[in-house]
């Protein structure tokens, strides 16, 4: 298996590439390229997501962004954002592979505009086609276990279930489902993608045992994106450390933390 999580060194390995950071940072909606660069640098994110769009300025806009990516020196994960059909996604993936010189593709096939939820049927079909063509696919999916199984059967080594709809910042809409998914696929790298609005959401996902967090809007639209990116990096580290440390089980009834034995005055009212 090419993709594993090395718990000894705590290196995250995705399709054979090791990473020390577990934050995957989107590059859209920042106030400026400079602030985007600052966010990447301060968070120490090693993977950034990118896209491709129609070029209207004789290649200059794309070239400027390409230069910025190269200056950052990070791993690039292109997406198929906005695609609604298998054909659109496959064509976009091929264009992205040529543009960014990488077999990695964050596969998004969107079902509708209101929720931007994954079209799981087309997602699985597109994943199968792309894997057979040599792509290393990061599918943006739901927390549905049967879909996850189909994606793994198609050859995906990583799954990226949503926390909540893209751009909502609502956090983990269904922690129970995400916990179940983690338990059901203990050896598959799972990255929560979308819906994470604040660092505590990221910590919660990492405490569930998730391997990483993919986010964009929560950082890009913060008053201080660079500082927020750092906050997310710290929250992800905290959640990861807690997961590795072993979190206590919840109880319904109180249990004194201070030892009861030896409590002074314990028997005054006993007569």
């Amino acid at each position, binding site marked *: 298996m090419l993709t594993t999580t090395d718990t000894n060194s705590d290196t995250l390995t995705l399709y054979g590439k090791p990473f020390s950071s577990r934050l995957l940072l989107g590059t859209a909606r920042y106030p400026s390229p400079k602030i985007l660069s600052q966010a990447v640098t301060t968070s120490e994110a090693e993977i950034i997501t*990118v*896209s491709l769009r*129609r070029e209207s300025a004789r*290649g200059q806009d794309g070239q400027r962004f390409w230069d910025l*990516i190269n200056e950052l020196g990070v791993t690039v994960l292109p997406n198929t954002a906005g695609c609604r059909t298998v054909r659109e996604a*496959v064509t976009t993936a091929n264009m992205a592979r040529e*543009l960014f010189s990488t077999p990695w593709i964050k596969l998004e096939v969107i079902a509708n505009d209101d929720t931007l939820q994954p079209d799981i049927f087309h997602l699985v079909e597109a994943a199968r086609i792309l894997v057979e063509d040599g792509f290393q696919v990061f599918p943006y999916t739901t927390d549905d276990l049967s879909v996850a199984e189909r994606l793994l059967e198609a050859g995906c080594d990583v799954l990226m279930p949503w926390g909540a709809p893209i751009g909502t910042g609502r956090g983990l809409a269904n922690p129970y489902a995400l916990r179940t998914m983690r338990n059901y696929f203990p050896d598959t790298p799972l990255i929560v993608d979308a819906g994470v609005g604040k660092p505590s959401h990221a910590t919660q996902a990492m405490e569930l045992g998730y391997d990483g967090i993919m986010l964009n809007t929560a950082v890009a639209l913060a008053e201080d994106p660079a500082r927020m990116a750092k906050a997310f990096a710290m929250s992800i580290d905290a959640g990861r450390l807690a997961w590795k440390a072993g979190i206590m089980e919840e109880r319904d009834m109180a249990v004194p933390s201070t030892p009861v034995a030896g409590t002074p005055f314990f028997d005054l009212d006993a007569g």
Partner: protein
Amino acid sequence: MQIVVNGTPQATDAQTLLELCETLGFGKARVATAVNGDFVAVPARAARKLCADDKIEIVAPRQGG
């Protein structure tokens, strides 16, 4: 002939996709192309002949989430 480039109808004398890219100033630019929804790799542009009403996509790297 009339074709559609990135959603905008326009006339062109270009016979191939490579010619079109050069005519539009994308000759050496970092762009990827598709014709009528099918990806056309850089080495294949010269052999990809254009027909009237073809829909061409020319895309470049951009910010994404």
